[in-house]
């Protein structure tokens, strides 16, 4: 089996994220009851809630550099989303370490963190605040975000009335507008229509040219092959393969296809 073949060291690009033997552990209780009452009852009955540990990611040593588009592939439950959360800084590794830049733009699901009761415009301001942008930055950027999302009059309507494609448009426009150093995307391009898919693809490419790093999770192997410069194959929380997207995808097809 091919173990993370080192990338060709032709042009050493600046490393943006570095994982060192990182692991993430979840703990499950088989009769998990998140109440005080439940826990007291368990104490009383002498039954100790049998907790089971589960390593969603184990011993990950990976580096991500500027200008890369890295696809994360792997079967369901292989740890792709957990890795994305780790890169986004939503969780910290239970063991090992991670170095990551402060400003990471993460779309952990296609629709981001939009608040259904707010309009597109209001969501834009909430997004800016949640991501620590300056107040003035969003004021200045709003017209171009509105234009890119192409939502028309819906930009001022509560987001809960949007279709999933429209939500994805808004979320992607927000996530990419401020030229993040790192963009993390979970199955984004599967939602928008073809027109918007193309548009987002071009924007992604532009980010890369400017030296950003893009990490995409996708089950769409064709997309990974065509859009990514590199792919990482995860299975059971471990890296099975890491290298040129075409090779990794071919290997994936052979193993799981």
């Amino acid at each position, binding site marked *: 089996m091919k173990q993370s073949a080192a990338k060709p060291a032709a042009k050493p690009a600046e490393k943006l994220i570095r994982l060192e033997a990182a692991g993430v552990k979840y703990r499950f209780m088989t009769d998990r009851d998140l*109440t005080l009452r439940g826990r007291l009852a368990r104490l009383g009955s002498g039954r100790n809630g049998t907790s089971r540990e589960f390593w969603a990611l184990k011993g990950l040593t990976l580096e991500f550099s500027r200008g890369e588009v890295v696809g994360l592939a792997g079967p369901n439950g292989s740890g792709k989303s957990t890795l994305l959360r780790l890169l986004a800084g939503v969780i910290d590794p239970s063991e090992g370490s991670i170095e990551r830049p402060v400003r*990471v733009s993460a779309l952990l*699901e296609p629709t981001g963190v939009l608040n259904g*009761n707010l309009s597109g415009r209001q969501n834009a301001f909430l997004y800016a*605040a949640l991501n*620590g*942008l300056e107040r003035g930055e969003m004021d200045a950027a709003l017209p171009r975000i509105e234009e890119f999302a192409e939502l028309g009059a819906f930009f001022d309507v509560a987001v809960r009335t949007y279709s999933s494609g429209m939500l994805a448009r808004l979320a992607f426009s927000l996530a990419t507008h401020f030229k993040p150093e790192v963009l993390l995307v979970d199955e984004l391009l599967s939602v928008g229509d073809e027109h918007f898919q193309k548009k987002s693809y071009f924007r992604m490419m532009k980010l890369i040219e400017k030296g950003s790093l893009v990490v995409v999770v996708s089950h769409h192997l064709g997309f990974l092959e065509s859009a990514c410069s590199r792919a990482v194959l995860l299975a059971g929380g471990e890296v099975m393969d890491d290298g040129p997207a075409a090779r990794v995808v071919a290997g994936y097809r052979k193993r799981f296809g």
Partner: protein
Amino acid sequence: MMRLWKEVAASRDLFIELLKVQMDQRYNGSALGVIWALAMPLLTILSFSLIFSSLSGWNLADYGVYFFCGYVPWTFFQASSLHAAESLVGNAFYVTRISMPKQVLPLVAVALNGIDAVAGMVILFALMPLLGAPYHLSMLCLPASALLTAAAVAGVAMLCAQANVFFRDFRYLLNSALFLWFFFSPVLWRPDTLSPALRPFYRLNPAVAFLELFQLPVRLGILPPVEAWLLAGVWASALLLAGGLTFAANQKRFYYYL
């Protein structure tokens, strides 16, 4: 703890934005919405004053002022705690999807109810001449009273928010506890009506320290004694410290429980 505070200071915009969103949802952007938010406490104050002043034979206007100036800070404390308990669980959507300063969420709950409390106090001041109650110079200390109370409530809010993440029934427990605690605190009744045997224990209730800071200046026109300020200060710092330190220690674990 210091980092926690620095993060709060740095996320002022987030704080204001979340507050705006929540106010918008609570008051529904209408003037009438504000009236609804204030109608319930006003009705409570009116009916309690009518019932309890006639029960105790205490003059209605005087009782009303006494009850009002204790009930506003109490409601601030009660509503903030309950609201904060929901703040992390209710916003799990954000907490599990972006890396954000999580302590902002319970603090927004405190600020939101703080606005209600300030509005309540303003109404009390407007009503005082109608009730024949004089304004006192000592009432100028109320901003300090409010600040100390807010600090204590912020500490409690951070504790409640965490507790509800780890024990989802905490909120119901809290609700019952607050209900009972209300009757054990001198809001409806006056401490000097307490039998002398109970006096020493009465002081153990931390709510007393804060209620005094409002009741003494508003009803009696007395500046609270130094001991009262000290006691409230000690409680406020202890609660703020306890809330902040545990929050800093636990916040990495929230994700796994949400």
